[in-house]
Protein backbone atom coordinates (compact mmCIF):
# COMPACT_ATOMS: atom_id res chain seq x y z
CA UNK A 1 0.00 0.00 0.00
CA UNK A 2 1.36 3.42 -0.85
CA UNK A 3 1.58 6.14 1.77
CA UNK A 4 -0.63 8.25 -0.46
CA UNK A 5 -3.39 5.72 0.11
CA UNK A 6 -3.44 6.32 3.84
CA UNK A 7 -5.36 8.93 5.75
CA UNK A 8 -4.26 10.25 9.15
CA UNK A 9 -6.06 7.37 10.81
CA UNK A 10 -3.78 4.95 9.02
CA UNK A 11 -6.20 3.17 6.77
CA UNK A 12 -7.04 3.40 3.08
CA UNK A 13 -9.22 6.05 1.61
CA UNK A 14 -12.14 4.83 -0.52
CA UNK A 15 -11.05 5.96 -3.98
CA UNK A 16 -7.92 4.94 -5.81
CA UNK A 17 -6.39 1.70 -6.97
CA UNK A 18 -5.26 0.28 -3.66
CA UNK A 19 -3.65 -3.08 -3.25
CA UNK A 20 -6.15 -4.40 -0.73
CA UNK A 21 -4.89 -7.98 -0.88
CA UNK A 22 -1.34 -6.81 -0.27
CA UNK A 23 -2.39 -4.47 2.53
CA UNK A 24 -4.42 -7.24 4.16
CA UNK A 25 -1.55 -9.72 3.96
CA UNK A 26 0.77 -7.13 5.49
CA UNK A 27 -1.71 -6.42 8.26
CA UNK A 28 -2.04 -10.15 9.01
CA UNK A 29 1.76 -10.51 9.15
CA UNK A 30 1.97 -7.53 11.47
CA UNK A 31 -0.78 -8.93 13.70
CA UNK A 32 0.92 -12.30 13.86
CA UNK A 33 4.24 -10.72 14.75
CA UNK A 34 2.94 -8.52 17.58
CA UNK A 35 0.73 -11.31 18.80
CA UNK A 36 3.72 -13.45 19.69
CA UNK A 37 4.55 -10.85 22.34
CA UNK A 38 1.16 -9.72 23.62
CA UNK A 39 -1.59 -12.18 22.58
CA UNK A 40 -4.10 -9.62 21.41
CA UNK A 41 -5.86 -12.07 19.09
CA UNK A 42 -7.59 -15.33 19.85
CA UNK A 43 -8.10 -16.17 16.19
CA UNK A 44 -6.51 -14.68 13.06
CA UNK A 45 -8.62 -15.40 9.99
CA UNK A 46 -6.00 -15.51 7.26
CA UNK A 47 -8.19 -17.28 4.71
CA UNK A 48 -11.33 -15.26 5.32
CA UNK A 49 -9.50 -11.92 5.33
CA UNK A 50 -7.64 -12.77 2.12
CA UNK A 51 -10.90 -13.82 0.43
CA UNK A 52 -12.56 -10.58 1.48
CA UNK A 53 -9.62 -8.57 0.15
CA UNK A 54 -9.79 -10.33 -3.23
CA UNK A 55 -13.53 -9.68 -3.43
CA UNK A 56 -13.04 -6.00 -2.57
CA UNK A 57 -10.43 -5.60 -5.28
CA UNK A 58 -12.98 -6.68 -7.86
CA UNK A 59 -15.39 -3.93 -6.78
CA UNK A 60 -15.65 -0.98 -9.14
CA UNK A 61 -14.53 2.28 -7.49
CA UNK A 62 -18.05 3.66 -7.33
CA UNK A 63 -19.26 0.62 -5.40
CA UNK A 64 -16.64 0.89 -2.68
CA UNK A 65 -17.82 1.55 0.85
CA UNK A 66 -16.52 4.14 3.31
CA UNK A 67 -14.27 1.62 5.05
CA UNK A 68 -12.89 0.09 1.88
CA UNK A 69 -9.94 -2.14 2.72
CA UNK A 70 -9.87 -1.19 6.41
CA UNK A 71 -8.45 -4.00 8.56
CA UNK A 72 -10.51 -4.39 11.73
CA UNK A 73 -10.17 -6.59 14.81
CA UNK A 74 -13.31 -7.69 16.64
CA UNK A 75 -13.66 -8.69 20.28
CA UNK A 76 -14.39 -12.37 20.67
CA UNK A 77 -17.86 -11.86 22.17
CA UNK A 78 -19.08 -10.34 18.90
CA UNK A 79 -20.29 -12.93 16.40
CA UNK A 80 -18.27 -13.22 13.19
CA UNK A 81 -19.75 -15.89 10.98
CA UNK A 82 -17.66 -19.03 10.79
CA UNK A 83 -15.10 -17.91 13.36
CA UNK A 84 -14.70 -19.18 16.92
CA UNK A 85 -16.78 -17.03 19.25
CA UNK A 86 -15.76 -18.07 22.74
CA UNK A 87 -16.30 -14.94 24.83
CA UNK A 88 -13.02 -15.99 26.42
CA UNK A 89 -14.70 -18.92 28.14
CA UNK A 90 -13.66 -22.55 28.15
CA UNK A 91 -17.36 -23.34 28.17
CA UNK A 92 -17.64 -21.95 24.64
CA UNK A 93 -14.22 -23.16 23.52
CA UNK A 94 -15.70 -25.17 20.64
CA UNK A 95 -18.37 -22.70 19.57
CA UNK A 96 -18.33 -21.07 16.14
CA UNK A 97 -20.70 -18.24 15.28
CA UNK A 98 -23.30 -19.24 12.70
CA UNK A 99 -24.04 -15.65 11.72
CA UNK A 100 -22.59 -12.12 11.76
CA UNK A 101 -23.48 -9.61 14.44
CA UNK A 102 -25.18 -6.56 13.00
CA UNK A 103 -22.07 -4.45 13.60
CA UNK A 104 -19.94 -6.97 11.72
CA UNK A 105 -22.45 -7.12 8.89
CA UNK A 106 -22.31 -3.33 8.62
CA UNK A 107 -18.51 -3.29 8.68
CA UNK A 108 -18.42 -5.82 5.85
CA UNK A 109 -20.95 -3.86 3.78
CA UNK A 110 -18.77 -0.78 4.21
CA UNK A 111 -15.75 -2.62 2.85
CA UNK A 112 -13.87 -3.46 6.05
CA UNK A 113 -11.73 -6.59 6.29
CA UNK A 114 -12.19 -8.58 9.51
CA UNK A 115 -8.72 -9.80 10.45
CA UNK A 116 -9.77 -11.89 13.40
CA UNK A 117 -11.18 -12.01 16.90
CA UNK A 118 -9.44 -10.67 19.97
CA UNK A 119 -8.94 -11.56 23.61
CA UNK A 120 -11.08 -10.47 26.55
CA UNK A 121 -11.93 -11.23 30.13
CA UNK A 122 -14.33 -14.17 30.30
CA UNK A 123 -17.76 -12.93 29.14
CA UNK A 124 -16.46 -9.39 29.53
CA UNK A 125 -16.32 -9.71 33.31
CA UNK A 126 -13.07 -8.12 34.32
CA UNK A 127 -10.83 -5.09 34.12
CA UNK A 128 -7.53 -6.65 33.17
CA UNK A 129 -7.94 -9.17 30.31
CA UNK A 130 -6.38 -11.86 32.44
CA UNK A 131 -9.36 -14.16 33.04
CA UNK A 132 -9.96 -15.49 29.55
CA UNK A 133 -9.35 -19.21 29.11
CA UNK A 134 -6.44 -18.61 26.72
CA UNK A 135 -4.53 -16.48 29.20
CA UNK A 136 -3.76 -12.76 29.46
CA UNK A 137 -3.16 -10.12 26.86
CA UNK A 138 -0.07 -8.06 27.63
CA UNK A 139 0.11 -4.30 27.43
CA UNK A 140 2.01 -3.25 24.29
CA UNK A 141 3.38 -0.25 26.18
CA UNK A 142 4.94 -2.52 28.82
CA UNK A 143 4.39 -6.26 28.27
CA UNK A 144 4.94 -6.96 31.97
CA UNK A 145 1.74 -5.07 32.77
CA UNK A 146 -1.95 -5.67 32.30
CA UNK A 147 -3.62 -4.06 29.33
CA UNK A 148 -6.90 -3.29 31.12
CA UNK A 149 -10.18 -4.90 30.29
CA UNK A 150 -12.31 -6.39 29.34
CA UNK A 151 -11.63 -5.26 25.75
CA UNK A 152 -7.90 -5.69 26.27
CA UNK A 153 -7.41 -7.64 23.04
CA UNK A 154 -8.91 -4.94 20.81
CA UNK A 155 -6.97 -2.23 22.65
CA UNK A 156 -3.68 -4.09 22.36
CA UNK A 157 -4.31 -4.79 18.68
CA UNK A 158 -4.73 -1.06 18.02
CA UNK A 159 -2.00 0.19 20.35
CA UNK A 160 0.52 -2.25 18.89
CA UNK A 161 -0.21 -1.07 15.36
CA UNK A 162 -1.66 -4.39 14.23
CA UNK A 163 -4.92 -2.71 13.18
CA UNK A 164 -5.99 0.93 12.97
CA UNK A 165 -9.36 0.29 14.60
CA UNK A 166 -11.11 -2.42 16.59
CA UNK A 167 -14.53 -3.15 18.01
CA UNK A 168 -14.99 -3.90 21.68
CA UNK A 169 -17.89 -4.03 24.07
CA UNK A 170 -18.33 -1.78 27.08
CA UNK A 171 -20.49 -2.75 30.03
CA UNK A 172 -18.85 -0.92 32.93
CA UNK A 173 -15.83 0.60 31.17
CA UNK A 174 -14.47 -2.28 29.14
CA UNK A 175 -13.59 -0.15 26.13
CA UNK A 176 -12.46 2.98 27.98
CA UNK A 177 -10.21 1.39 30.57
CA UNK A 178 -7.94 -0.56 28.18
CA UNK A 179 -7.88 2.44 25.85
CA UNK A 180 -6.56 4.56 28.71
CA UNK A 181 -4.03 1.91 29.73
CA UNK A 182 -2.62 1.74 26.20
CA UNK A 183 -2.73 5.41 25.22
CA UNK A 184 -5.43 5.26 22.56
CA UNK A 185 -9.03 6.50 22.16
CA UNK A 186 -11.97 4.35 23.27
CA UNK A 187 -15.58 5.34 22.75
CA UNK A 188 -18.68 4.05 24.51
CA UNK A 189 -21.68 5.34 22.50
CA UNK A 190 -25.02 6.36 23.96
CA UNK A 191 -27.10 3.36 25.02
CA UNK A 192 -29.17 2.52 21.94
CA UNK A 193 -26.86 4.13 19.37
CA UNK A 194 -25.44 0.79 18.16
CA UNK A 195 -27.15 -2.58 17.73
CA UNK A 196 -26.11 -5.37 20.08
CA UNK A 197 -27.56 -8.14 17.93
CA UNK A 198 -24.93 -10.88 17.81
CA UNK A 199 -23.17 -9.80 21.00
CA UNK A 200 -22.93 -12.34 23.80
CA UNK A 201 -24.96 -10.60 26.48
CA UNK A 202 -23.44 -9.94 29.88
CA UNK A 203 -25.59 -7.18 31.43
CA UNK A 204 -28.13 -6.09 28.89
CA UNK A 205 -29.09 -2.73 30.37
CA UNK A 206 -25.40 -1.70 30.24
CA UNK A 207 -23.82 -3.55 27.29
CA UNK A 208 -22.79 -1.40 24.33
CA UNK A 209 -20.55 -1.96 21.34
CA UNK A 210 -17.70 0.54 21.33
CA UNK A 211 -14.74 1.43 19.11
CA UNK A 212 -11.03 1.78 19.80
CA UNK A 213 -8.64 3.67 17.54
CA UNK A 214 -5.46 5.67 17.56
CA UNK A 215 -7.23 8.78 16.25
CA UNK A 216 -10.69 10.34 16.77
CA UNK A 217 -11.30 10.31 13.01
CA UNK A 218 -10.87 6.54 12.92
CA UNK A 219 -13.45 6.21 15.66
CA UNK A 220 -15.78 8.52 13.77
CA UNK A 221 -15.56 6.60 10.52
CA UNK A 222 -16.40 3.33 12.14
CA UNK A 223 -19.07 4.74 14.45
CA UNK A 224 -20.95 6.24 11.49
CA UNK A 225 -21.03 2.81 9.85
CA UNK A 226 -22.13 0.71 12.82
CA UNK A 227 -24.69 3.16 14.27
CA UNK A 228 -28.40 3.15 13.65
CA UNK A 229 -31.57 1.25 14.34
CA UNK A 230 -31.71 -2.51 13.92
CA UNK A 231 -35.01 -4.41 13.93
CA UNK A 232 -33.18 -7.32 15.57
CA UNK A 233 -32.28 -5.23 18.64
CA UNK A 234 -35.28 -3.57 20.26
CA UNK A 235 -33.01 -1.32 22.34
CA UNK A 236 -31.43 0.28 19.29
CA UNK A 237 -32.84 3.73 18.59
CA UNK A 238 -34.00 5.07 15.27
CA UNK A 239 -32.46 8.50 14.96
CA UNK A 240 -30.26 10.29 12.50
CA UNK A 241 -26.63 9.16 12.38
CA UNK A 242 -24.29 12.16 12.01
CA UNK A 243 -21.07 12.12 10.03
CA UNK A 244 -18.87 11.43 13.04
CA UNK A 245 -15.64 11.46 11.04
CA UNK A 246 -16.42 14.95 9.80
CA UNK A 247 -16.99 16.02 13.40
CA UNK A 248 -13.64 14.57 14.40
CA UNK A 249 -12.02 16.47 11.57
CA UNK A 250 -13.34 19.76 13.03
CA UNK A 251 -11.45 20.11 16.32
CA UNK A 252 -13.17 22.45 18.74
CA UNK A 253 -12.52 23.07 22.41
CA UNK A 254 -15.76 23.24 24.40
CA UNK A 255 -16.79 26.53 26.00
CA UNK A 256 -17.09 24.89 29.41
CA UNK A 257 -15.85 21.63 30.90
CA UNK A 258 -17.19 20.44 34.24
CA UNK A 259 -14.42 18.46 35.93
CA UNK A 260 -14.72 16.31 39.01
CA UNK A 261 -13.44 17.85 42.21
CA UNK A 262 -10.04 17.45 43.80
CA UNK A 263 -11.73 15.47 46.58
CA UNK A 264 -12.90 12.96 43.97
CA UNK A 265 -9.40 12.45 42.62
CA UNK A 266 -7.81 12.23 46.04
CA UNK A 267 -7.82 8.45 45.61
CA UNK A 268 -5.36 8.78 42.71
CA UNK A 269 -1.63 8.78 43.31
CA UNK A 270 0.08 12.18 43.19
CA UNK A 271 1.44 11.76 39.68
CA UNK A 272 -1.98 10.82 38.33
CA UNK A 273 -3.51 13.81 40.04
CA UNK A 274 -0.87 15.97 38.43
CA UNK A 275 -1.66 14.44 35.04
CA UNK A 276 -5.35 15.20 35.57
CA UNK A 277 -4.55 18.81 36.44
CA UNK A 278 -2.40 19.08 33.32
CA UNK A 279 -5.43 17.98 31.32
CA UNK A 280 -7.51 20.73 32.94
CA UNK A 281 -4.84 23.28 32.05
CA UNK A 282 -4.79 22.07 28.47
CA UNK A 283 -8.52 22.68 28.17
CA UNK A 284 -8.07 26.13 29.71
CA UNK A 285 -5.27 26.91 27.29
CA UNK A 286 -7.65 25.97 24.47
CA UNK A 287 -10.16 28.50 25.73
CA UNK A 288 -12.42 26.29 27.84
CA UNK A 289 -13.76 27.46 31.17
CA UNK A 290 -13.35 24.85 33.91
CA UNK A 291 -16.03 24.28 36.51
CA UNK A 292 -16.00 21.54 39.12
CA UNK A 293 -18.55 19.03 40.42
CA UNK A 294 -18.69 16.25 42.98
CA UNK A 295 -19.10 12.67 41.84
CA UNK A 296 -21.79 10.49 43.37
CA UNK A 297 -20.50 8.57 46.38
CA UNK A 298 -18.18 5.73 45.40
CA UNK A 299 -19.78 3.06 47.55
CA UNK A 300 -23.23 3.83 46.15
CA UNK A 301 -22.02 3.81 42.58
CA UNK A 302 -19.97 0.63 42.79
CA UNK A 303 -22.64 -1.33 44.63
CA UNK A 304 -25.45 -0.19 42.33
CA UNK A 305 -23.46 -1.16 39.27
CA UNK A 306 -22.40 -4.58 40.51
CA UNK A 307 -25.81 -5.49 41.92
CA UNK A 308 -27.52 -4.72 38.64
CA UNK A 309 -24.82 -6.08 36.34
CA UNK A 310 -24.53 -9.33 38.28
CA UNK A 311 -28.31 -9.77 38.39
CA UNK A 312 -28.47 -9.42 34.64
CA UNK A 313 -25.45 -11.67 34.18
CA UNK A 314 -26.99 -14.46 36.21
CA UNK A 315 -30.01 -14.35 33.94
CA UNK A 316 -28.13 -13.99 30.67
CA UNK A 317 -25.66 -16.76 31.42
CA UNK A 318 -28.36 -19.27 32.39
CA UNK A 319 -28.40 -20.46 28.79
CA UNK A 320 -24.82 -21.72 29.02
CA UNK A 321 -25.64 -25.09 30.53
CA UNK A 322 -24.04 -27.65 28.24
CA UNK A 323 -27.46 -28.42 26.79
CA UNK A 324 -28.41 -25.35 24.80
CA UNK A 325 -24.94 -23.83 24.59
CA UNK A 326 -21.49 -24.85 25.70
CA UNK A 327 -19.33 -27.87 26.23
CA UNK A 328 -21.06 -30.66 28.16
CA UNK A 329 -19.80 -32.55 31.17
CA UNK A 330 -21.95 -35.66 31.64
CA UNK A 331 -21.53 -36.20 35.40
CA UNK A 332 -23.51 -39.07 36.93
CA UNK A 333 -25.91 -39.26 34.07
CA UNK A 334 -28.63 -37.03 35.45
CA UNK A 335 -29.65 -33.80 33.76
CA UNK A 336 -29.00 -31.73 36.88
CA UNK A 337 -25.51 -33.16 37.30
CA UNK A 338 -24.69 -32.53 33.65
CA UNK A 339 -25.80 -28.90 33.86
CA UNK A 340 -24.01 -28.30 37.15
CA UNK A 341 -20.89 -30.06 35.93
CA UNK A 342 -20.84 -28.21 32.63
CA UNK A 343 -21.23 -24.81 34.25
CA UNK A 344 -18.78 -25.52 37.04
CA UNK A 345 -16.11 -26.82 34.67
CA UNK A 346 -16.78 -24.21 32.01
CA UNK A 347 -17.00 -20.97 33.96
CA UNK A 348 -14.00 -19.34 35.59
CA UNK A 349 -13.94 -18.10 39.19
CA UNK A 350 -14.98 -14.51 38.49
CA UNK A 351 -17.91 -15.52 36.31
CA UNK A 352 -19.14 -17.98 38.92
CA UNK A 353 -18.86 -15.29 41.59
CA UNK A 354 -20.93 -12.85 39.58
CA UNK A 355 -23.53 -15.51 38.87
CA UNK A 356 -23.74 -16.20 42.61
CA UNK A 357 -24.07 -12.51 43.39
CA UNK A 358 -26.72 -12.06 40.74
CA UNK A 359 -28.71 -15.08 41.79
CA UNK A 360 -28.62 -13.83 45.37
CA UNK A 361 -29.95 -10.38 44.63
CA UNK A 362 -32.73 -11.79 42.47
CA UNK A 363 -33.80 -14.37 45.04
CA UNK A 364 -36.82 -13.97 47.24
CA UNK A 365 -36.11 -11.76 50.20
CA UNK A 366 -33.37 -9.78 48.53
CA UNK A 367 -34.83 -8.72 45.23
CA UNK A 368 -36.95 -5.85 46.48
CA UNK A 369 -34.44 -4.54 48.96
CA UNK A 370 -31.25 -5.01 46.99
CA UNK A 371 -32.16 -5.03 43.32
CA UNK A 372 -34.85 -2.36 43.67
CA UNK A 373 -32.56 -0.19 45.79
CA UNK A 374 -29.80 -0.45 43.21
CA UNK A 375 -32.27 0.51 40.49
CA UNK A 376 -33.28 3.58 42.49
CA UNK A 377 -29.63 4.45 43.02
CA UNK A 378 -29.01 4.17 39.31
CA UNK A 379 -31.79 6.62 38.54
CA UNK A 380 -30.49 9.04 41.16
CA UNK A 381 -27.00 8.86 39.69
CA UNK A 382 -28.29 9.44 36.17
CA UNK A 383 -30.41 12.41 37.24
CA UNK A 384 -27.48 13.91 39.10
CA UNK A 385 -25.08 13.54 36.18
CA UNK A 386 -27.57 14.96 33.71
CA UNK A 387 -28.07 17.92 36.05
CA UNK A 388 -24.36 18.77 35.86
CA UNK A 389 -24.63 19.34 32.11
CA UNK A 390 -26.46 22.56 32.95
CA UNK A 391 -23.06 23.92 33.95
CA UNK A 392 -21.15 22.88 30.83
CA UNK A 393 -21.04 20.73 27.71
CA UNK A 394 -18.92 17.87 29.04
CA UNK A 395 -18.06 16.17 32.30
CA UNK A 396 -14.39 15.33 32.77
CA UNK A 397 -13.06 12.58 35.03
CA UNK A 398 -10.04 10.26 35.10
CA UNK A 399 -10.56 6.88 33.44
CA UNK A 400 -8.53 4.66 35.72
CA UNK A 401 -7.92 4.81 39.41
CA UNK A 402 -4.41 3.38 39.09
CA UNK A 403 -1.74 2.85 36.47
CA UNK A 404 -1.85 -0.60 34.83
CA UNK A 405 -0.48 -3.02 37.41
CA UNK A 406 2.13 -5.68 36.79
CA UNK A 407 0.73 -9.01 35.66
CA UNK A 408 2.43 -10.67 38.60
CA UNK A 409 0.94 -8.32 41.22
CA UNK A 410 -1.51 -9.91 43.63
CA UNK A 411 -4.95 -8.33 43.60
CA UNK A 412 -7.05 -8.05 46.74
CA UNK A 413 -10.59 -9.37 46.48
CA UNK A 414 -12.86 -6.74 45.00
CA UNK A 415 -10.00 -4.33 44.26
CA UNK A 416 -10.81 -4.36 40.56
CA UNK A 417 -14.37 -3.33 41.43
CA UNK A 418 -12.99 -0.17 43.02
CA UNK A 419 -10.99 0.39 39.86
CA UNK A 420 -14.23 0.82 37.93
CA UNK A 421 -15.24 3.74 40.14
CA UNK A 422 -15.02 6.32 37.36
CA UNK A 423 -16.06 4.45 34.22
CA UNK A 424 -19.26 2.91 35.61
CA UNK A 425 -20.83 6.37 35.90
CA UNK A 426 -21.49 6.68 32.16
CA UNK A 427 -22.59 3.04 32.10
CA UNK A 428 -25.15 3.56 34.84
CA UNK A 429 -26.46 6.71 33.17
CA UNK A 430 -26.41 5.42 29.58
CA UNK A 431 -24.25 8.36 28.51
CA UNK A 432 -21.72 8.49 25.69
CA UNK A 433 -18.17 8.60 27.02
CA UNK A 434 -14.79 8.84 25.37
CA UNK A 435 -11.44 7.86 26.84
CA UNK A 436 -8.84 10.33 25.60
CA UNK A 437 -5.05 9.98 25.93
CA UNK A 438 -3.76 12.68 28.27
CA UNK A 439 -0.06 12.14 28.53
CA UNK A 440 1.86 9.85 30.83
CA UNK A 441 2.64 9.20 34.43
CA UNK A 442 5.82 7.27 35.16
CA UNK A 443 6.15 6.37 31.51
CA UNK A 444 2.71 4.74 31.39
CA UNK A 445 -0.31 6.16 29.57
CA UNK A 446 -2.80 8.30 31.46
CA UNK A 447 -6.30 8.84 30.13
CA UNK A 448 -9.18 11.14 30.90
CA UNK A 449 -12.83 10.50 30.15
CA UNK A 450 -15.20 13.00 28.60
CA UNK A 451 -18.89 12.34 29.17
CA UNK A 452 -21.57 14.09 27.12
CA UNK A 453 -25.35 14.26 27.16
CA UNK A 454 -27.07 11.46 25.22
CA UNK A 455 -26.43 11.38 21.45
CA UNK A 456 -23.59 13.94 21.57
CA UNK A 457 -20.83 11.63 20.29
CA UNK A 458 -19.97 14.04 17.47
CA UNK A 459 -19.23 16.81 19.96
CA UNK A 460 -17.12 14.39 22.01
CA UNK A 461 -15.00 13.51 19.01
CA UNK A 462 -14.57 17.16 18.08
CA UNK A 463 -13.46 18.05 21.61
CA UNK A 464 -11.11 15.08 21.80
CA UNK A 465 -9.53 16.06 18.49
CA UNK A 466 -8.93 19.57 19.81
CA UNK A 467 -7.53 18.30 23.11
CA UNK A 468 -5.05 15.96 21.47
CA UNK A 469 -4.41 17.99 18.31
Amino acid at each position, binding site marked *: MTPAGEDPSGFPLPPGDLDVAGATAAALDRAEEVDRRIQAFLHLDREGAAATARRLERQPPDARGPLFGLPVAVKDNIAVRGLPSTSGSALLGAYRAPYDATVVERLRCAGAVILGTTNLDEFGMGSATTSGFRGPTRNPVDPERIVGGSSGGPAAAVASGAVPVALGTDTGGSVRLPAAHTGIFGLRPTYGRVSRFGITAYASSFDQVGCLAAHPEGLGRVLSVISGADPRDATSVDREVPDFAAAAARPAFPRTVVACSDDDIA*ILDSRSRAAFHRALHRFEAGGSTIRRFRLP*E*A*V*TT*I*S*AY*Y*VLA*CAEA*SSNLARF*DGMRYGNRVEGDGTL*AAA*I*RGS*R*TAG*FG*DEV*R*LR*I*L*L*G*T*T*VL*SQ*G*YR*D*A*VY*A*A*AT*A*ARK*AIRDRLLGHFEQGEFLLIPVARTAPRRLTDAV*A*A*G*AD*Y*DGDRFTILASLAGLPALAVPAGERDGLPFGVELMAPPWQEAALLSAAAAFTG
Partner: protein
Amino acid sequence: MADGIKSDEFFRIAALASVAPPEGETRTRNLLAARKVLGTYTSRVVETARSEPEAQPGGPSGEDAACPLRPDEPRDGFPDGKAFELAPERGERFVQVPRVLGGGT
Protein backbone atom coordinates in the same frame (compact mmCIF):
# COMPACT_ATOMS: atom_id res chain seq x y z
CA MET B 1 -36.28 -9.02 53.50
CA ALA B 2 -33.73 -10.95 55.39
CA ASP B 3 -31.68 -8.79 57.72
CA GLY B 4 -28.36 -10.05 56.52
CA ILE B 5 -26.70 -12.54 54.27
CA LYS B 6 -24.91 -15.39 55.90
CA SER B 7 -22.13 -17.07 54.03
CA ASP B 8 -23.70 -20.51 54.13
CA GLU B 9 -26.83 -18.95 52.71
CA PHE B 10 -24.82 -17.18 50.05
CA PHE B 11 -23.17 -20.37 48.97
CA ARG B 12 -26.42 -22.35 49.04
CA ILE B 13 -27.43 -20.02 46.23
CA ALA B 14 -24.93 -21.95 44.16
CA ALA B 15 -27.45 -24.77 43.88
CA LEU B 16 -29.98 -22.37 42.39
CA ALA B 17 -27.36 -21.10 39.98
CA SER B 18 -26.38 -24.65 38.96
CA VAL B 19 -22.73 -24.23 39.83
CA ALA B 20 -20.63 -25.84 42.52
CA PRO B 21 -19.90 -23.52 45.44
CA PRO B 22 -16.32 -22.27 45.46
CA GLU B 23 -13.80 -23.69 47.86
CA GLY B 24 -10.64 -22.63 49.60
CA GLU B 25 -9.20 -19.24 48.86
CA THR B 26 -11.76 -18.62 46.12
CA ARG B 27 -14.51 -19.00 48.68
CA THR B 28 -12.95 -16.36 50.91
CA ARG B 29 -12.51 -14.01 47.98
CA ASN B 30 -16.14 -14.56 47.03
CA LEU B 31 -17.26 -13.54 50.49
CA LEU B 32 -15.17 -10.39 50.44
CA ALA B 33 -16.55 -9.42 47.07
CA ALA B 34 -20.10 -10.16 48.20
CA ARG B 35 -19.67 -7.89 51.18
CA LYS B 36 -18.32 -5.14 49.01
CA VAL B 37 -21.21 -5.33 46.57
CA LEU B 38 -24.11 -6.25 48.83
CA GLY B 39 -22.98 -4.50 51.99
CA THR B 40 -24.42 -1.21 50.85
CA TYR B 41 -27.91 -2.57 50.79
CA THR B 42 -28.12 -4.78 53.81
CA SER B 43 -28.10 -3.38 57.31
CA ARG B 44 -26.31 -6.40 58.66
CA VAL B 45 -23.88 -8.18 56.46
CA VAL B 46 -22.66 -11.66 56.75
CA GLU B 47 -21.58 -14.01 59.43
CA THR B 48 -18.73 -14.83 61.68
CA ALA B 49 -16.24 -17.54 61.27
CA ARG B 50 -17.88 -19.69 63.91
CA SER B 51 -20.95 -20.22 61.82
CA GLU B 52 -18.91 -20.37 58.68
CA PRO B 53 -19.03 -23.74 56.97
CA GLU B 54 -15.77 -23.07 55.17
CA ALA B 55 -14.01 -24.00 58.41
CA GLN B 56 -15.08 -27.55 57.60
CA PRO B 57 -12.71 -29.90 55.83
CA GLY B 58 -12.35 -28.83 52.23
CA GLY B 59 -12.58 -25.14 53.03
CA PRO B 60 -9.86 -22.73 54.00
CA SER B 61 -8.15 -23.30 57.27
CA GLY B 62 -6.31 -21.33 59.90
CA GLU B 63 -6.54 -17.57 59.87
CA ASP B 64 -8.57 -17.37 56.68
CA ALA B 65 -11.22 -19.66 58.04
CA ALA B 66 -11.30 -18.00 61.43
CA CYS B 67 -11.65 -14.44 60.24
CA PRO B 68 -11.98 -13.82 56.56
CA LEU B 69 -12.24 -10.09 57.20
CA ARG B 70 -9.01 -9.00 58.76
CA PRO B 71 -8.24 -5.41 59.65
CA ASP B 72 -5.55 -5.21 57.00
CA GLU B 73 -7.90 -6.03 54.19
CA PRO B 74 -8.53 -3.18 51.74
CA ARG B 75 -11.28 -0.91 52.99
CA ASP B 76 -11.88 1.24 49.98
CA GLY B 77 -15.45 1.59 48.92
CA PHE B 78 -16.94 1.54 52.40
CA PRO B 79 -17.94 4.77 54.04
CA ASP B 80 -15.62 4.69 57.01
CA GLY B 81 -13.76 1.43 56.93
CA LYS B 82 -15.45 0.28 60.12
CA ALA B 83 -17.56 -2.07 58.10
CA PHE B 84 -14.69 -4.50 58.13
CA GLU B 85 -14.05 -4.54 61.83
CA LEU B 86 -15.46 -7.77 63.17
CA ALA B 87 -14.66 -8.97 66.62
CA PRO B 88 -15.44 -12.68 66.52
CA GLU B 89 -13.76 -13.17 69.87
CA ARG B 90 -16.62 -11.18 71.34
CA GLY B 91 -19.12 -13.20 69.39
CA GLU B 92 -19.97 -10.41 66.96
CA ARG B 93 -21.88 -11.89 64.11
CA PHE B 94 -22.70 -8.97 61.90
CA VAL B 95 -21.19 -5.83 60.55
CA GLN B 96 -23.19 -2.66 60.73
CA VAL B 97 -23.20 -0.86 57.44
CA PRO B 98 -24.86 2.51 56.91
CA ARG B 99 -27.85 2.43 54.63
CA VAL B 100 -27.79 4.60 51.57
CA LEU B 101 -30.55 6.20 49.58
CA GLY B 102 -33.14 4.80 51.92
CA GLY B 103 -33.51 1.76 49.78
CA GLY B 104 -31.90 -0.84 51.98
CA THR B 105 -33.49 -3.37 54.21
